[in-house]
Every structure is written in C-alpha cells, then in structure tokens.
C-alpha cells in the first residue's frame, strides 16, 4: 500500500524578480533601459534609465552661432526634424525680431504637418511590431513614410538632416512642382492611413492587447508634464497649435483629437486621427500658398540678437518641443535648453506600467512613441 505524499508544511516562498530590459532591445526604440520588478506576471516597480545617447547638444549649441545650431536640432529629434528646427528658428526670430515672409510661413506649416504625418506613419509601423502585428504594419507604415521622405529629399537635398529652415525664412525655394508633389503625397497618405486603420484598429486581437492597458488619468498626465498625443489621449484638449497659435495655425481649421480612457488604444488611435487632421491642414495651406519672397529683404549675414530670453514651444508629433533661448547679446546663445516632449512623457511610464503585466510593458512603452535622441539630447 502506497503512502500518500506528505503535505508540505512550509508555505511557498516567493520572491520578486528583476528583469532588465535594454539598453539593446528592439522594442526600446533606441537605447533605453528599464528594470522591471515583477511578482509573477505583475509589474510592481519600474526604474527607467536614460542618457545612453547624451551628446551634449545644448552645450554644443551654446558654442555655435545661431545658424549652426539648426543642424543640431535635426540630430536631436530625427523623426520630426522640421518641427524641431521650427522651434529653434522661431526662438531666434523672436529674439532678433525678424519678420518671416508669408510664403515661407505657409511652406513651413506644410512641411511641419507632413513631418507629423511621416512621424506618425513611423509610429504606426513600429507600434504594430511592438504589439505583434509583425511585419505587415511595419511595411505598410514605412511604405507611406518613404513617400513623404522622398518629397523631403527633393526639397532639402537630404533624407534626414534637412537643415532647411533658417532664422527669417527658408534656405531656398521649393521645387516648381511642389504643390503637385504634395497633393500626390497626400493622396497616398490618405490611402495608407485607411489601410493601416483597417489593419490595426479593426483588428480584434490588436484591440484586446491595447484597450484598457497602460491607463493614465488626466490629472496624472498633467502632473507628470506629458504632452502631445499622450496627454490628449487622457482627455486633456491641450494642443499648442490651437491654444497658442504660431505660424498661421489660427487661420486653418482643424480638430484637436482627444481620447476618453487614456489607455494605449487611445494613444494609438489618437495618432491615426491626428494624421488625418494634418492632411486637412496641409490642404488648406496649399490653397493659401502664393508666390513671394521666402526670406526677409534685409537679413544680416551674421545674425545677432539683443540680450533677452524666450521660450518657444511648438506642437511636435510627440508633444511639446520647446526651445528656451537666453542671450547676452552677440551671435550665439548664452543658454539653450531643449524641452524634450519624450523626456516628460517617459516620466509617466511608471504610472502606466505598475500593476500591469510584463507582456504589456513593451506595448505601453511603444505607445509613447519615444525618440531617445530627443530624450538624451
């Protein structure tokens, strides 16, 4: 007769496990590390580590004249270069009291919105991979981004580091067929958005992975200083384009997209809808585009600003991209601070992740659409 197995008298001892994610991890969108403390499948704590890409962009800008700094903006925010350049040149223009010609402003607006489109396509592709819509979404997203990127290359001569905006206007005139090309790109983008929307938003598995995950309330989102689609997904209608209009955003008609739940799905879907709004804005800009000068009549060879300070902020695809420029007079900034949207958005990661599942950590991080070069500067 066999004995029954003895009853264990001791209780199970469990211990928290530390899981190190990154810095070399495909889903960290650059070089980002987070240490997850997990209890079974549940995340109990998150410690993010940034700074792997820190190159001292601010310090470098303080040693260069105003024109040279433009190139550095491209290198901090490499997925929304035009938006980054815009913040910088606007800061210089405001201090130097330069008047930007009308045509240059409309072109800037078109390019910034196109850049928002291309950045959101990049997000949709990369996010698809994070969630597990392997390959397909990525290829769709990149196909459409490439079309926009081609247009940028035709205009600026560079695929990524445009350096096309100048304090006062633009570096050179856009090609003759600019308007037709933009309309072609828009047609393509509209089609692409529709397909991606069908592929992802309508996908039941995708929704199961994203709905109700990584929720952050409006109060928390404001308190953490998040901005852009991340903040709007929590239902806060804050959009600098509408709240403090720059360029000619007060002359075009567009909606500020907000979400209801502040979850991953809202952050994702907000971007799809925002991309459609961008198309709407660009179409209105094209209607208003007229021939004219693209730089002011009197532009000094060496730009100098009087002593003073300014904090310009623009609505970049990832949120508020701000430039705090302090001048003591002369041709270079005394202090230049880049306000990174992703840095503040990343701070809120803790609130979103704790209490969730390990498998969702990647999805939540992906939904913030981080660019580590911008975080680390």
């Amino acid at each position, binding site marked *: 007769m066999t004995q029954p197995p003895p009853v264990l008298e001791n209780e199970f001892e469990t211990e928290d496990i530390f899981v190190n994610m990154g810095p070399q991890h495909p889903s960290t969108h650059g070089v980002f590390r987070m240490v997850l403390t997990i209890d079974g499948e549940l995340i109990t704590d998150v410690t993010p580590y940034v700074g792997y890409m820190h190159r001292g962009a601010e310090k470098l800008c303080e040693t260069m004249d105003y024109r040279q700094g433009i190139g550095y903006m491209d290198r901090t925010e490499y997925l929304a270069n035009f938006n980054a350049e815009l913040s910088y040149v606007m800061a210089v223009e405001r201090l130097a009291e330069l008047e930007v010609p009308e045509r240059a402003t409309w072109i800037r607006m078109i390019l910034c919105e196109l850049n928002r489109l291309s950045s959101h396509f990049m997000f949709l592709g990369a996010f698809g991979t994070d969630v597990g819509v392997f390959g397909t979404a990525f290829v769709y997203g990149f196909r459409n981004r490439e079309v926009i990127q081609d247009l940028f290359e035709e205009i600026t001569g560079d695929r990524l580091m445009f350096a096309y905006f100048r304090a006062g206007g633009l570096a050179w005139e856009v090609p003759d067929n600019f308007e037709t090309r933009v309309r072609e790109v828009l047609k393509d983008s509209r089609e692409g958005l529709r397909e991606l929307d069908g592929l992802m938003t309508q996908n039941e598995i995708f929704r199961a992975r994203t709905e109700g995950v990584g929720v952050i309330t409006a109060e928390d989102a404001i308190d953490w*200083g998040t901005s852009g689609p991340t903040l709007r997904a929590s239902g806060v209608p804050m959009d600098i384009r509408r709240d403090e209009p720059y360029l000619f955003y007060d002359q075009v008609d567009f909606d500020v997209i907000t979400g209801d739940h502040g979850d991953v799905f809202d952050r994702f879907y907000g971007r799809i809808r925002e991309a459609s709004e961008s198309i709407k804005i660009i179409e209105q800009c094209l209607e208003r585009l007229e021939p004219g000068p693209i730089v002011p009549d009197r532009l000094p060879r060496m730009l100098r600003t009087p002593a003073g*300070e300014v904090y310009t902020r623009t609505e970049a695809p990832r949120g508020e991209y701000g430039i705090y420029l302090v001048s003591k007079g002369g041709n270079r900034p005394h*202090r230049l601070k880049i306000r990174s949207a992703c*840095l503040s958005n990343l*701070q809120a990661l803790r609130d979103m992740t704790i209490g969730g599942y390990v498998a969702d950590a990647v999805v939540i991080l992906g939904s913030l659409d981080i660019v580590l070069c911008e975080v680390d500067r």
Partner: protein
Amino acid sequence: MTTDEPNGSAADSLDDTIWGAVDAALAGITADPERGAQDLIVFIPKGELTRGLRVLKSSEGLSFDYLRNLTAIDWEEEGIDVVYHLYSTEHRHNLTVKCHLDNDDLTLDTATTVWRAAGWLERETAEMFGVRFEGHPDPRPLLLPEDMDDTFPLRKDHPLAEIEVLQGEGIAYAEEAFE
C-alpha cells in the same frame, strides 16, 4: 537675471500681462516682475520659492497645473538662476518663475512636491549645474554616468573638448574658427 533692466516703471508696462493676478495671489511673498520677450517673468527669492510655486498652482484664477520646463542658467560669477516655465491647462496662460542662487550656496527646495514633472528635470539640472535640490525623492544623475559627480558640464567654466585636427593643413583653419 538679465543684463537689461526693463524700461520705465515695471508696473506701468505690465498692464497687458497677468501680473495683476499673480501679484494678488502672491500676497506676502516677495515677487519681482519683468517683461520677457514672450511671457511674464517673476523673480521669487529662494526662501519663499516653494511656497510661491504652490500658491501659483492652487490659486483659483491662475491654476498653473502644468510644469512645462525646468532648467538653470549659469551667470558665472553672478550665480545661477533656476527657471520654471509654468502653464495653466485651464486658463491657457504662461508664467516664467526664476529663482536666483549664489555660487556659494547652490541648494534649493525641490519642486517635486508641487508637480511630479519636476522629478527628472531637477535631476538633469542638478547633474548639469551642480544645484542640489533638497528633498528630491530620487536624486540620482539622469543623463550622465553615475561616477561623473565632480564636474558640471553645462556650467560656463566647463570646457568643451577641442576639435581634433588630423591634417597639418587644417590646424591654422581650426584655430581661426574657434578663436
């Protein structure tokens, strides 16, 4: 602290700004206004800063609930200014708050008790300028290596590495360019 003084009497030129409301809210706190190129700037002395920030956040008509940006400016021998850019999501107005620190006492109370957004921004300011934020819940360096605690890269006395010149021809040119 800028090198220029505002023209004329400060109170006259600030009529179109939110200075009236800020002044009323900050009753009992020393606040010094100045017109910036874009936003109103208010100087608050170190001892009253946290109280001032808290008032600015909670006051009804101002409700600065959003900390846009936090950084510092090195004025070399004149000390360091810590700068707060505030925004109200409700009223959509902006305010810049500055606090001057002398070089021999670079400590300041943390603003994380007012906005959690200050957390990483203060960590960055601390490592870059050597300002110590008292009571910060997590005072580790943010961007710099952990052992780099004896030098503050964004101070003006911190040198930038020299550009490497590999060819003899370039030496004269490089020296000229960086003079």
